[in-house]
């Protein structure tokens, strides 16, 4: 079968792979490159577990074809901690006990990251809207909302 070359930056490092035509970015990241932090919860675009950041925008990797990502800057949750130091969002999720089974967590963190990148001091409503494409079945959402608000406060205190 004919394979297609794809080349992009993942969490700052260059990646080049040959994939089958029609391969989703989710599949390429997980099964070709070995970054399993995006999760395949539905492959329908309805759960958000596969959320990644492409060129600064939140996207669903399950509905994005890898071959449309040539030259893109792709960020995933596995690349968020720097030199072993957790990102404030990751720290806030830990402290708020905002993870249970953990399957939705990487996608939630991606959604929250994009929010805080654009809106450093979000309202609760902003957070709710930002997380609205991500399904969590364990927590009832409240601890996750609180974690994002806490991370935002921590960020703004650091900036001050």
């Amino acid at each position, binding site marked *: 079968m004919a394979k297609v070359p794809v080349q992009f930056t993942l969490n700052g490092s260059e990646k080049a792979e040959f994939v089958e035509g029609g391969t989703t970015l989710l599949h390429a990241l997980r099964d070709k490159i070995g970054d399993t*932090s995006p999760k395949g*919860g539905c492959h329908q675009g309805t759960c958000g577990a596969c959320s990644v950041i492409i060129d600064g925008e939140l996207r669903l990797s399950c509905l994005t074809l890898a071959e449309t990502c040539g030259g893109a800057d792709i960020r995933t*949750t596995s690349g968020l901690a720097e030199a072993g130091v957790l990102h404030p969002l990751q720290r806030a999720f830990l402290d708020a006990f905002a993870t249970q089974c953990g399957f939705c967590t990487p996608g939630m963190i991606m959604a929250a990251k994009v929010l805080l990148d654009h809106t450093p001091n979000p309202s609760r409503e902003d957070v709710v809207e930002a997380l609205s494409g991500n399904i969590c079945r364990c927590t009832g959402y409240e601890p996750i909302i609180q974690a994002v608000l806490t991370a935002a406060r921590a960020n703004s205190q650091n900036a001050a």
Partner: protein
Amino acid sequence: MELRKSYFADQRKDGLHEIGQPRPRLDSPGHVTGKTAYFADRNFPGMLHLKMVRSPHHHARIRSIDTSEAEKHPGVVKILTAKDVPHNVYTILILIQVGPEDETVLADGKVRWKGEAVVAVLAETERAAQEAAAKVKVDYEVLPAVFDMEEALKPGAPLVNEYHGQNYYLYDSGECRKVRFGDVEAGFAEADHILEQSYQSSPIEHAPTETTGCVVMPEGNDRFTCYTNTQAMFFTLDNTSIILQMPGSKLHFVGGTVGGGFGGKVDVIVEPIAILGAKLTGRPVSFIYSREEEMQISSPRAAEKVVIKDGVMNDGRIVARQVTGYTDAGAYSRHSPYGAQKGAAHYPGPYTIPNVWIDTYCVYTNRTPSSAMRGFGVTIGDFALEVQMDKLARLIGMDPLEFRFINAYRDGDTKAHRQPTEGAALIECMQEASRAANWPVAEKYMAMSSYKKGA
């Protein structure tokens, strides 16, 4: 959250070092960094993908299955039908002697619900498996189906499952599990009011964010490692051993880190057929439910119908309660006979009632087999019981919360199943709810205690 330490302080040992401490979860760092390994995070070279050909009919005879075109499809490695499964008819609870075996791994001669697995296709890619699955030809003779539990229990209804011979599970106690305590008819005769009401639910889905699935790796020494998100490792291993007629020593299951279960991953569905595929091809096999399969193919919580007839006195005492519960098992037992049994044990709820009559039925219909879910056998019963309690209170003009105090079970009370009540705390929960919700009740109720009367 608030811990109210004032209740039961005499029974609790405080001052422990680790217990009662809000220690951080040791698994959370893996969750927030995306490093936690779930079963599907293992990817092996040469892995095959399993897709199921499923019944489009609710009830049908299978006249023939033709896989010849599918076998020729590029990328197809193996196609499995019922004849390939060594012990094709099974039931999960046979391990604890709850039979009969009533379900096929792959349909043999008949399908009993829309979505039932008929043919398994193993191919190099998911796409090739999907394309080949579309080429499998199954010739069906559609049979009349039954979806309504009451219809299913009527004489002359289509027979859902021949392994049972009737559309209900036959307990050692007969067509239903029974509890008989006191004299319910005498209770009704003495009651000031009688209220009979019917409650109904529809099936619901566990909807974990991670769908059911497994990845199987042949170890090369006639053993197979199965990475799975089952909720019960040995339950799955032992049932697989029976289905595949393979010694348990050949099976190695690895799991324990699951993306949500809620009871939906206690059925043994994906592992046996995936291991069979790995055995017959010598290749790693992945069988992961699509979200659509998780929603409509995996077992839901059963629909239930609950009929409650109560006799109540004007002073608030419930003197008789008769409950008839129906659990819609769908086409196969799975855990439903256990669930209906659990319901029988749960009624009449956390209340002390002198005359109780319980019948719980496990009914077969032509729908997706139901199984365990969070609150199994109890959740819908509690809905029915507690709405009934509200209606009874209003019927006799009493505050619904006070009405519950009057009937609440306490230490030493004998339950309908004849066990003495121990460790009750319903009254204290209601007292605290009264305070928290600013729903005042009479002082005598706030002075009550669950502790053994007279003690």
